[in-house]
């Protein structure tokens, strides 16, 4: 496996005073944070905390009201194409066209990202995610777990330096969710990919994230490693920390 990262100390994502208003509702309220290269960072919070809006602003499909975003040292306002060529995204709430075969979908996205030797890349990733037998199937025929792996395959086609994952294990059974987490850890270790990860499953965040950022009502309420936060709040696990923060105790 290749390593694609330059090992520098520069953060992958830098966000300063980011604000997003939807009419009179402030969804994201002046948040600032950084994520480290080659690490998995969890973005946590209750429903409506602003996690998805933050990810959508990082992806450039929601325009911030104010604030600064820097990804891989570049501003999305001036380097949209360079940034989007170097990052990728996966969410169970966003579909691949279901009337296309899996291979056709992957070829389409490989072409969108300008992947050289797209067929070779797809085969390599299909082996990594154990989906080779799914390639000739229609996307609509896949199970939820298979779709998650295909989505992750799509998300790695361009050898991203940064992967934004919005609840990647939502609606997966425990076995497939565990396998998915294993895949993500392998991606991080073998490919040096930085990952920003949202989830409501605190056990999995505790398992795979080196650092977590807690959002509540659009603000960052705390951040640190799972162990640090558990110790700081005097709780047994991250789930209890989550409940303490979400309930404002």
């Amino acid at each position, binding site marked *: 496996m290749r390593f694609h990262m330059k090992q520098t100390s520069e953060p992958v994502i830098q966000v300063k005073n980011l604000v*997003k208003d*939807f009419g009179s509702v402030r*969804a994201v309220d002046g948040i600032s944070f950084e994520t480290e290269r080659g690490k998995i960072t969890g973005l946590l919070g209750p429903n409506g905390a602003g996690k998805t*809006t933050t990810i*959508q602003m990082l*992806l*450039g*499909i*929601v*325009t911030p009201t104010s604030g600064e975003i820097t990804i891989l040292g570049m501003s999305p306002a001036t380097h*949209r*194409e360079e940034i*989007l*060529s170097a990052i*990728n*995204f996966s*969410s169970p*709430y*966003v*579909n*691949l*066209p*279901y*009337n*296309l*075969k899996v291979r*056709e979908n992957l*070829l*389409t*996205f490989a*072409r*969108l*990202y*300008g992947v050289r030797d797209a067929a070779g890349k797809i085969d390599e990733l299909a082996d990594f995610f154990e989906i080779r037998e799914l390639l000739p199937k229609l996307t609509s025929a896949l199970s939820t777990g298979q779709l998650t792996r295909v989505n992750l395959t*799509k998300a790695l086609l361009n050898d991203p330096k940064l992967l934004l994952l919005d609840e990647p294990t939502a609606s997966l059974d425990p076995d497939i969710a565990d396998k998915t987490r294993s895949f993500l850890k392998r991606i991080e270790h073998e490919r040096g990919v930085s990952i920003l990860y949202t989830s409501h499953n605190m056990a999995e965040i505790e398992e795979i994230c080196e650092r977590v950022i807690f959002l509540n009502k659009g603000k960052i309420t705390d951040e640190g490693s799972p162990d640090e936060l558990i110790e700081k709040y005097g709780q047994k696990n991250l789930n209890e920390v989550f409940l303490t923060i979400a309930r404002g105790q």
Partner: protein
Amino acid sequence: MKLHRITAILIRHLYLYKRSFPRLMDIFYWPIMDLLVWGFFSAYLAGTNLDDFNVVSVLLGALIFWNLLSQSQKAVSVSFLEDVWEKNLLNIFVTPLRVSEFLIATSILAIIRIALIITVMGALAIFLYQFNIFQFGFYLIPFLINLLLFGSILGIFIMAILLRYGQQAQILAFGFIFLIQPVSAVFYPVSALPTALQYVAAFIPASYIFEGMRSVVATGSFSFSDLFLAFATNAVYLVLSVVFFYYMFARAKRRGSLLKLE
């Protein structure tokens, strides 16, 4: 602008057409049904010898060109709807794909679609009615280009509306074209319209296109003034529709509504 991104959007839709019988039906079914109904009607009228007027040529020519216009508009706006229906918009627009590349890809799709239709309808018209649309050759090409352009402009305009209203406005992708049909001089000249509607027709590129085409098909004469006016009005609407689309796209990003379209 990158060719590989334009071809990516293009092949995504060609994969879809290849596999989807209903989508292929949508391309061919209505044009063929139109051709059969209007063709037999034209043949009947031709038998009545209406002042040596070449009914078959004029009606069938108009019918074929109308289908080309309507299909080029649908190719553009329905390709956008496909991504809305399949919840794939976010995947598409978080790639480096530019909006301009997306618009160009859908316009190329329109070219492919009308190339298929003119081939099938043209061949059927020869076979069933001995009417050869291809006999007019190069005279019709500038008008065909304008037809394709106007169809794409309408498609882009409808996509912009879809960005605002989402799926509740999807009927526009299938029905909006009929709003302009009465003032497009498809089957009759602009002079047949009431005076007020003649003024409206003056702002519709299709009216110049169909007048010009009718002139070629019925009399063999080429109207440079119709061609010029078709190009001029199309140029204005092209700029306006693209600006409108960019505005609505930026608005959707500001309001976070791109995902909510689905």
